């Protein structure tokens, strides 16, 4: 149990370190950084490397945005395996991510509940 937390902390932290280096050394905007990480997640998924990482690190791999690319690619790959060429296309539209739905729903609720404030502390 404790080991799971430590794994999640270390792996999740390291993925964030990669992001920080992209921003500070690579001088990329947050949007560029996150896009690169998502693409990386999808590519790792293609090589079958991301699922083992999830098995290893649990939330350390599912919480960073890379897992978003993985879940999309994982879904597309599963469909492609099942249905071949058509699967690549139809698979794309069947694949959903709970992250997107949750963000839309809570974004909408947030807009109902809050207003932006320029507070600083």
């Amino acid at each position: 149990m404790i080991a799971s937390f430590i794994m999640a902390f270390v792996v999740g932290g390291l993925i964030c370190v990669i992001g920080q280096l992209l921003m500070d050394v690579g001088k990329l905007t947050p949007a560029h950084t996150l896009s690169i990480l998502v693409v990386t997640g999808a590519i790792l998924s293609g090589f079958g490397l991301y699922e083992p990482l999830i098995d290893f690190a649990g939330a350390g791999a599912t919480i960073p945005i890379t897992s978003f690319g993985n879940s999309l690619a994982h879904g597309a790959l599963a469909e492609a395996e099942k249905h071949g060429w058509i699967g690549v296309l139809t698979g794309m539209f069947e694949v959903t991510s709970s992250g997107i739905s949750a963000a839309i729903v809570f974004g909408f609720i947030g807009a109902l509940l809050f207003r932006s404030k320029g507070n600083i502390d």
Partner: protein
Amino acid sequence: MKKHVLRFVTLVCVIQLLVACNGAQKEKFATFHGEEDTESQSKIEKLLKDEKSIQKGTAVFIDDIVLVGVEVKPFSKMRKAKIEKALQKKFEKEFPDKEILVSTDLKIAWEAQKLMKKELSEEELKKKVKKLQELAKEET
């Protein structure tokens, strides 16, 4: 606001710890079965003990179903899927006439451990095992 968030987090952690205590087992490998069958029992325990990357294993034995929940050692978790497959094969070889389900998923392992502790009738136990079988098959 900050306080509330912290409180929520501590609450989650406390629940986790409680769960962890409940789930703790003295012996590393254990089996549970509907009827007395020491032979299969020791067979299973041997199979589990032979696998080096496992730190805890629980097998529930009912009718012709064998449900095995195993906890993989932290640094072997990367190979969880492979370990699961290998174990599944071994069990199938050992018990060709049984329906085997080996799972390295923590949830299945926990539930198997819970079943060990509870005094359940055969009927209830079977129901629970069936449910776990389904749960283990769910993809996402």
